[in-house]
């Protein structure tokens, strides 16, 4: 009979090993991409258009395309998401409707990304006739990041103590005045975190933009929101699977720029959250 202390030791060691199996590869992935990609990064790589069928030159149009898409998505999703969060945290009662709204948010977050692509194609490209354009892609990505923005903003709003609201209401302020002048200013860091996480998500997604915006090879800057555009994640997909004989360095370099962009957004979100927790007045 093995002693129970010994069993515990073995069990804890196995649990530790399982955790390493996740965390170590993550570290390796990041290290490999940085190590092999850093050599490709130069001013020319970041500021030039792709040349020779994407086998040389830079990735500027893809970077610019991604920035446009992400900003477009945010302009669409932030107001709706924020107001939805205000509804859930300030107005919603604990009833059936609220339960359904929450379930809808969970479902929206769970819809496969390629299904968002289909939806964007059917509604924006074909039905509204926006064509394959930055506008169609931004709206599709916007709906996709809505759950992220609603959930984080709602947490931020709900973390403002109830006494703040009571004090304001007791001074004769209306409900909206209280929200506008008391609750919102205190929740801004949390809302910002949600917006940034949304940006990070939108910047990295490929499937929703496949049929709504993405141009295979378009070595110029988009001129209007009705233009097609290149985008970083799609560009990485194209040069790693569709175009033969692309220099490894260019692939790793593109992966590094994309990874950096996404992780940088997440890092900012973490810093804001950390600072906010430290300075909390309550």
């Amino acid at each position, binding site marked *: 009979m093995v002693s129970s202390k010994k069993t515990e030791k073995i069990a804890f060691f196995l649990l530790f090993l399982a955790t390493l199996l996740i965390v170590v590869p993550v570290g390796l992935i990041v290290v490999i991409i940085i190590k092999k990609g850093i050599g490709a990064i130069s001013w020319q790589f970041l500021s030039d258009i792709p040349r020779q069928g994407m086998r040389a030159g830079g990735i500027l149009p893809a970077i610019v395309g991604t920035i446009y898409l992400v900003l477009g998505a945010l302009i669409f999703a932030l107001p709706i998401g924020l107001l939805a969060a205000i509804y859930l945290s300030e107005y919603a009662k604990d009833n059936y409707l609220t339960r359904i709204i929450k379930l809808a948010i969970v479902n929206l977050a769970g819809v496969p990304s390629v299904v968002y692509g289909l939806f964007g194609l059917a509604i924006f490209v074909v039905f509204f006739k926006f064509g394959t354009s930055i506008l169609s892609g931004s709206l599709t990505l916007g709906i996709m990041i*809505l759950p992220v923005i609603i959930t984080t903003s709602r947490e931020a709003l709900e973390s403002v103590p109830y006494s703040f609201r009571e004090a304001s209401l007791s001074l004769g302020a209306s409900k909206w005045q209280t929200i506008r002048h008391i609750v919102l200013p205190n929740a801004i860091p949390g809302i910002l975190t949600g917006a940034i996480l949304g940006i990070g998500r939108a910047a990295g997604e490929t499937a929703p933009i496949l049929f709504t915006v993405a141009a295979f090879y378009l070595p110029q800057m988009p001129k209007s929101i009705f233009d097609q555009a290149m985008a970083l994640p799609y560009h990485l997909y194209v040069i790693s699977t569709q175009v033969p004989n692309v220099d490894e360095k260019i692939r790793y370099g593109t992966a590094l720029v994309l990874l950096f962009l996404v992780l940088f957004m997440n890092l900012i979100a973490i810093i804001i959250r950390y600072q906010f927790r430290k300075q909390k007045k309550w």
Partner: protein
Amino acid sequence: MRKFKEFLIEKLILICGLASIFFVVLIFLFLLKEGLAVFKTVSPAKFLLGSKWYPISEPPQLGILPLILGSLLVTLGAAVISIPIGVASAIYIAEVAPLKLKEILKAGIELLAAIPSVVLGFIGMVTLVPWVKNIFHLPTGLTALSGSIMLAFMAMPTIVSIAEDALYSIPKSYKEGALALGATRWQAIWRVMLPAASSGILAAVMLGLGRVIGETMAVMMITGNAAVIPHSILQPTRTLTATIAAEMGEAVVGSEHYFALFAIGIVLFVISFGINVTADIFLHKRKW
């Protein structure tokens, strides 16, 4: 005047509050609008159970059974890898790890969740695929197994964070009670904490696998994209998601092929809806 303005703002807030419901319904309606047309040419039973997917032959053969089996095979493989590792690491992070290490591990797992799937697909192509090819002496490393391993990684952040929440939300008195009766920490975890958190852990597993079924880019890049009924996990295969992503670019709007890809979208939507609703029910089931 101010009253009127506030009335308008509050109505706007209500409308935005309902936006999520609106969008879920809208997505479903538009999938139905474009997808149901395929059933004019092929019966639902033939569509779901047909074993030949040749969408551009004349006449097109639109059976998605190979794709469904491809998705199932890859998901099953990912489940076998990710469930034990994910749950074990959730237990380690929630109950065993010292505080400092816990923060580092959680950050590492958040990092994994943030890496875009196309980047993971790329890394899978250049590292994992050659390994699988060499280890099993295969003609190609682009197999269901490679896809399963990569997808297991993508499921783990979801499984770990939700399972950890479930363990964390068990009242402290449960564990303290067990320890006070002379149980070791491991006995308390194994006999008391895990059963108490079982519905939350089940939900974590379901949501993780939901992410796997819906994953597109990484799968398309490393499973080899052969739309035939898979016989082994060491063969190339193709999933539902990858089929849509790979073929929609060439499908003509309004063609049979186009409708069929939307019908696949309906299947995926229904699967993810089912998973999310069931997981939600499990998450709201509290025994204390």
